[in-house]
């Protein structure tokens, strides 16, 4: 009898461990150029993000949230998106989301910025796991130094997804905006060295 009870407990623990295996975790993978003086960066431009999702406006949405939250840190001045668009138009960049180092240096001169951010939205939308569904956002960002165009910082973040509580108790997870904000918040933590 006692052995049966232990077996039930063991199975329950195993179930919990298996079911939480799909939940997202915070990625700690960050590249940071050790020779770069990040404190010298006063203004940044955020290029339009690449969109690898099926949501056509995902990249613009994430970019907008990122720009606002980056500005809200008060650490750097974010070049207005209209000014970024003007710079892209002046250079006639075919693929502004993936500029070459030469493009970056030229662009930075036009809009007078110290660094340029590029990004990729890899996931944006609902994911399903069995009968449960939740929103997920996956973004990676790169920062390029304006004078040389070389990559000085890179990080990615994934937030949302189906959690244990979603599996056990149902619910549709958090709204997309909240998930996006969390992902951007995580990236800002990585950028500012937390």
């Amino acid at each position: 009898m006692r052995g049966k009870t232990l077996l039930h407990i063991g199975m329950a623990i195993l179930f919990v461990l298996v079911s939480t295996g799909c939940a997202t975790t915070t990625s700690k993978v960050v590249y940071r150029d050790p020779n770069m003086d990040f404190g010298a960066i006063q203004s940044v431009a955020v290029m339009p993000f690449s969109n690898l999702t099926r949501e056509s406006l995902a990249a613009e949405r994430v970019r907008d949230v990122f720009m606002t939250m980056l500005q809200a840190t008060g650490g750097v001045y974010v070049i207005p998106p209209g000014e970024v668009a003007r710079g892209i138009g002046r250079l006639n960049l075919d693929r502004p989301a993936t500029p070459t180092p030469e493009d970056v240096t030229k662009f930075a001169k036009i809009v007078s910025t110290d660094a340029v951010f590029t990004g990729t939205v890899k996931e944006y939308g609902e994911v399903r796991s069995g009968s449960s569904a939740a929103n997920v956002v996956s973004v990676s960002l790169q920062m390029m130094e304006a004078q040389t165009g070389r990559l000085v910082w890179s990080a990615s973040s994934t937030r949302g997804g189906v959690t244990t509580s979603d599996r056990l108790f149902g619910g549709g997870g958090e709204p997309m905006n909240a998930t996006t904000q969390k992902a951007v918040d995580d990236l800002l933590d990585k950028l500012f060295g937390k």
Partner: protein
Amino acid sequence: MIFSINCSGNRYFLAYCLLAAVLSGCAVAPISVPRGERVPLPLKIASFGPDKRSPQAADMVTIRWKVIATGGVGSYRYEFRTTDGQEEKSEQVGVLPTWDWSPKVPGTYRVKVLVRDAIGNAGDSGWSSPYTVVPPLVVSLLSPDPVSPQAAGMAKVRWKVNTTGGVGERTIAFRTTYGKEEKREQEGPSLWWDWAQQEPGTYKVKAVVQDAIGNVADSGWSREYLLVPKLKILSVTPDKFPPQVAAVSAVRWEVNETGGVEERVYSFWTSNGTSERAEQIGLSPTWNWSPAEPGIYRVKVAVRDAIGNTVDSGWSPEYRIELTAGLKSLIAVMPLENLTGMPVSVQELRKTLVRDLSRKGLNLLGDDDLEKFKERHRIRYTAGLNRELGEALRVETGTDAVLFPTLELMDDTLPPKAVLVARLISTNRSTPILWMDGAGISGNDAPGFLLLGLVNDPAVLWGKTEGKVVESLVGYLSGKGGQGPRMVEKRFLPKSYHGVPPEVPAGKETLSIAVLPFRNESTRRNAGEIMTLHFIDALSRAGRIDVVEPGEVRQVLLRTRTIMKGGLSLPQADILHTALNVDLVLTGIVTEYQDYLGGWGNPKVEFSTRVFDMKTRQIVWSSSSYNHGDDGVFFFNLGKVNTAFALASGMAHSTVEKMEAAFHKKEGPPPTAGAPPPTE
């Protein structure tokens, strides 16, 4: 021979000789007279001279001439004589070898002394070298400039001395007394002293002059010089708090001042930011101001006392004079702008609106007159008013204000929903927004007990919506309803924001802002225009922000051919700054503006805003907001928002409140009528 006599044996004589020789061996060998008597030395003047060197000042000094005579017989008598080159005068005769000379008359003198001894021998010193006697040192204090009385700390009084005579360079020391104490003020070679006394009182001044050889002359104390307290403006206050209404309100400004000399003249000035005007000059310290034109004014007062001292209060804090419309104002009701994104019979809805407005007794411009005006001016865009059209409408039809109704939502599915926004624009030159309000009602807003409060009839719902807007407008026109800021709910605050105070010209408290159409990236048609209206409403309710009428903004955007691809660029911002003359420009992106259809669902709104400071060409505000209708709702849908309009309105007001707080965080509390403006 004698020696031979001694040798011959006269030993007594030899002994006498030896004794005499021994006794007189050390004595000076005088001229021996027969029987041992001395012969007196000849009378001579060993020395003769004054104790003070030439030159000296007449009537200021006593010069002692001293003679030492030798030789002669008996006591001496001395005669001191002077000559000025023309006349020789005996000054003193007597036994005294000194003579104290106090020359009274300036000139060049020579002095000599004659010495006689007891038996009449005479000695003469001969004329001394020339001895100069300069004029006496004299000082007098001239009348001060300006004369008494003056105001302390305001006047610079020049005291001047007139000084002559004396020897060499003069040092003039000015001294003042205020009661008992004497104070040294200025000392030096300068003949004048600029006195800038800060303390009021009754003063006396004198000058003390000293020449190179120490002669001192004193001017004596001047007459009393009165310094009254400094002329100072303590406060300039209006009797009514701003804002006030143009052509209606009378504001009484009163100046409270102290100090100065006698009668004062008060000059009241106004400035509207572009020009300054003298409004009243006279002896009255109060001014009744009846501003005819709306605007942001500043008032200052200059006070001048009887002797010309002037003090200026400096410009007061901004005083807003607003335009208003009354129940008798002629109002033109423009066609209903349809932002629903769906075909709606807006003409029918307008008719009901006009009918309700007429029932309330409003003075409306006839439809025929309005149509003729639109034809005459080829007006196609009827959702805004620019300055030229406003002026034309006022001149040609006598219209005081124009009502722009906007239909944001008209959903007939159960439960129906209707959203109406309206704004009243003055036809005055600056086309200010006089009033703006909106109503968004869903049929299930208040279902009540057993759903008895559910509204299923779209016409009834429209009547309620439109009635709410009309009530608000009539309330404003009758002076009952205020346009104060709405209550901000915490749940609608922006999720992230950052703001810094913009750079505005010194002293400017009210910021002007143009709201550009938001970029619409949502699935809802016209969401960009709708969000613009929400922000215009929220900003126009904010205390210290002036919003440019969107019709004027549209006109400028069209005229300058501004296409904001990807947002506002800096060159475009410069163009807008020049054309609209605004301090700030607000732009934004709407990514979600979603109403729900039917009885179940949740409205969603998401947008971000950015504000450009046109002076620094930088972003001074950025925010990101998103909300669902059931945010903060926990039990029985209490507090649930059923329309995107209500949701967006709350979010816009929350954003504007945070924005205003960020823009004015450097400053103190808002200006009040009772608070005295800075003086001097």
